[in-house]
């Protein structure tokens, strides 16, 4: 009788999960072998060594990465664990930053010591988060998302328009309006001023380390379990003695507190705050970090933050950006086509296609090849193949861009050789747009990339790079 009910499916699924597949397998297996503490130690070691190996200005990049990691870890509590889609999160970050800027600059005649300012700001942010959670008692899913998004909008409106509080003395300038608050003082603790990039870098790194440990502990506690339970099934969680509303409030408060803390650091590092620091763009950047790495996973979120914050730095240098673009193109080709003979056919096709276009185009219109190639290795290499436009380059690249997007979408739906047929002009057009326009527009490229990554990620791997696959019953 002992065999009855023993369930083969589970046995098999166990076998299935025994090993990772594909080219990432060795790295993932190694990653699994490290205990959480080991992983953290490794990360901290590498991160602590980073400033010694880079130029001084690159330390700033490091700070950007660490700040994004901090704020994304907080967002992960709300979204990844408690499953509350909070689109107003960026406002808490802004709240912390503005609060610190107001009490630690010449904006008001009030300069609070850091050791008082920080705890007060963190507590105030958490309180604000708890207040925002009140509507979430009645709203679920999409409605909560939209309500919080409006909150974020209201925050930006307020700081931009209400530089003077209504009904208060006219001399009081609180937020600086559209001009923001310049000249924010650095953190100062025990007579030690965090007035260099290096010092702030290590301060941020210390916070990231503490946050990772604290959140790891919290995730493995009754509170963390209750958050995940209410994410999985709010009704069932309620029946299992979980006070759902209180825990939602707690998640909002913890997330907001972390965001507020990060904001103070941000204001100090940037030596100022401006309304545009806290717009939708930054909100999406945070979400991209959490989702790319793997919503719910602490290492995933940190990895996501590194990837997302480092991308613009890579894009800024046209030489590096070129490499990134072409390597990306090759990876995409391999992933989309898979079979080597077809890959070869595609590459050959693209090359031939390019020369034909060039011959035809320069035959009928001289300007088509008159432009200056970018001064990078790859661009010079393909200068005689791709069209580098002289005149009218904006109009033509616009059309090329639209066609390239349409081509991409066609590639997604086409199959077999049709896919290759669509891929050839698409790749050529993509290269053309890159060489003529995108390479000089790193910020737009980054925005296109983030948007595209979110869409593709949801369709292909909604759990993110390091997240575990999720099942949801709808």
């Amino acid at each position: 009788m002992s065999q009855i009910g023993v369930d083969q499916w589970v046995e098999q699924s166990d076998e299935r999960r025994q090993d990772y597949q594909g080219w990432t397998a060795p790295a993932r297996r190694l990653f699994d072998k490290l205990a959480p503490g080991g992983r953290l130690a490794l990360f901290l070691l590498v991160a602590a060594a980073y400033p010694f190996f880079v130029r001084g200005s690159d330390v700033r990049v490091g700070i950007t990465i660490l700040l994004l990691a901090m704020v994304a870890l907080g967002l992960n509590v709300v979204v990844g664990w408690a499953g509350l889609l909070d689109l107003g999160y960026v406002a808490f970050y802004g709240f912390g930053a503005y609060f610190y800027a107001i009490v630690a600059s010449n904006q008001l005649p009030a300069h609070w010591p850091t050791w008082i300012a920080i705890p007060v700001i963190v507590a105030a942010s958490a309180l604000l988060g708890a207040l925002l959670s009140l509507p979430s008692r009645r709203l679920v899913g999409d409605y909560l998302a939209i309500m919080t998004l409006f909150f974020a909008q209201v925050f930006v409106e307020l700081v931009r328009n209400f530089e003077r509080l209504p009904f208060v003395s006219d001399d009081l300038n609180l937020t600086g309006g559209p001009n923001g608050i310049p000249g924010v003082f650095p953190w100062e603790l025990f007579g030690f001023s965090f007035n260099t990039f290096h010092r702030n870098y290590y301060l941020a790194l210390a916070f990231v380390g503490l946050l990772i440990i604290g959140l790891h502990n919290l995730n493995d506690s009754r509170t963390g379990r209750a958050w995940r339970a209410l994410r999985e099934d709010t009704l069932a969680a309620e029946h299992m003695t979980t006070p759902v509303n209180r825990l939602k409030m707690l998640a909002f408060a913890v997330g907001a507190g972390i965001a507020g803390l990060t904001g103070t650091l941000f204001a100090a590092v940037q030596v100022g705050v401006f309304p545009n620091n806290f717009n939708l763009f930054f909100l999406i950047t945070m979400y991209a970090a959490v989702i790319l790495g793997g919503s719910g996973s602490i290492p995933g979120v940190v990895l996501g933050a590194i990837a997302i914050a480092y991308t613009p730095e890579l894009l800024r240098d046209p030489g590096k950006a070129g490499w990134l673009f072409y390597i990306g193109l090759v990876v995409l080709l391999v992933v989309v086509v898979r079979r080597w003979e077809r890959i070869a056919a595609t590459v050959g096709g693209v090359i031939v296609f390019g020369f034909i276009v060039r011959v035809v185009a320069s035959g009928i219109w001289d300007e088509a090849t008159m432009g200056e190639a970018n001064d990078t290795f790859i661009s010079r290499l393909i200068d005689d193949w791709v069209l580098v436009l002289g005149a009218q380059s904006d109009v033509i690249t616009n059309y090329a861009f639209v066609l390239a997007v349409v081509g991409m979408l066609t590639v997604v739906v086409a199959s077999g050789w049709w896919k290759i047929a669509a891929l050839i002009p698409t790749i050529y057009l993509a290269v053309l747009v890159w060489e003529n326009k995108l390479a000089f527009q790193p910020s737009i490229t980054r925005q296109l990339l983030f948007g595209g990554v979110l869409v593709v990620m949801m369709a292909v791997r909604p759990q993110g790079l390091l997240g575990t696959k999720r099942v949801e019953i709808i």
Partner: protein
Amino acid sequence: MKPILELRGLSKSFGGLKVIEDLDLVVGAGQIVHDDDPVVSQKDVVDDLDLSISPGEIVSVIGPNGAGKTTLFNLITGIYEPDRGDILMDGRSIVGLSPEQIANLGVARTFQTLRLFLNMTVKENVMAAAYGDSQARIWQSVFRTPAARREERQIAEMAERKLAFFGKRLMGYRWDQPAYSLSYANRRRLEIARAMATNPRLLMLDEPAAGMNPAETHEITELIGELRDEVGFSILVIEHDMHVVEGISDRVIALDHGVKIAEGSFEDVATSPQVIEAYLGYGAADRK
């Protein structure tokens, strides 16, 4: 003995459905009884129901589809508020309390549709149900204070004990598997284990044997008996499989259209003409 749970004249209907059905067509064409949204209201109702459960008793609720069984569960656990009537737990009314408060008072349930925390591990599913019985504050958890550690250990041990109740089914390597990887029967077992972890006195099982094969059904039947004998729960069960009902019940209650049509031993209820009619159709009991 004083009953652990008592229902007095409990009634719940959705959007006045009963009115419509009674008046319908009997009144004749042209008489239209309006209603907010009858399409959604043609679900279960509960009508003037009295019921009491003594400590240590196993009561089964049977009835054809749409008889109001799950609505009854939803009323007791606080998802719905009754239109009329009272629900007493140890003589105290629990009407108007939230599901969480009712759970903390000692009522635990499983769900017909299986509502596990699918992406949490098997052990975590059970541990999550200990929230109401644990105290660690959030800062204690963040800093892993000795008290928090001790409590964590206790919760883990408790979860392991509850899981061990099901023999080898949910033991060992399965602890760390996500709940979605479990088979259907094991998910039902896990739901029971999770309900047990809230430390209840009344356990409400909604179709515990649904989707199980005969051997598994037999096993769950024995298990429900053990739950009562060894752990001392009072148990209220909704079940379709009459073998299970026969095997476990101290008392059986049959519902049809939200009305109690029979109550007593399984033998009495299963041979009651009204019950046979409810299941087989009108006139079934007359025929022999």
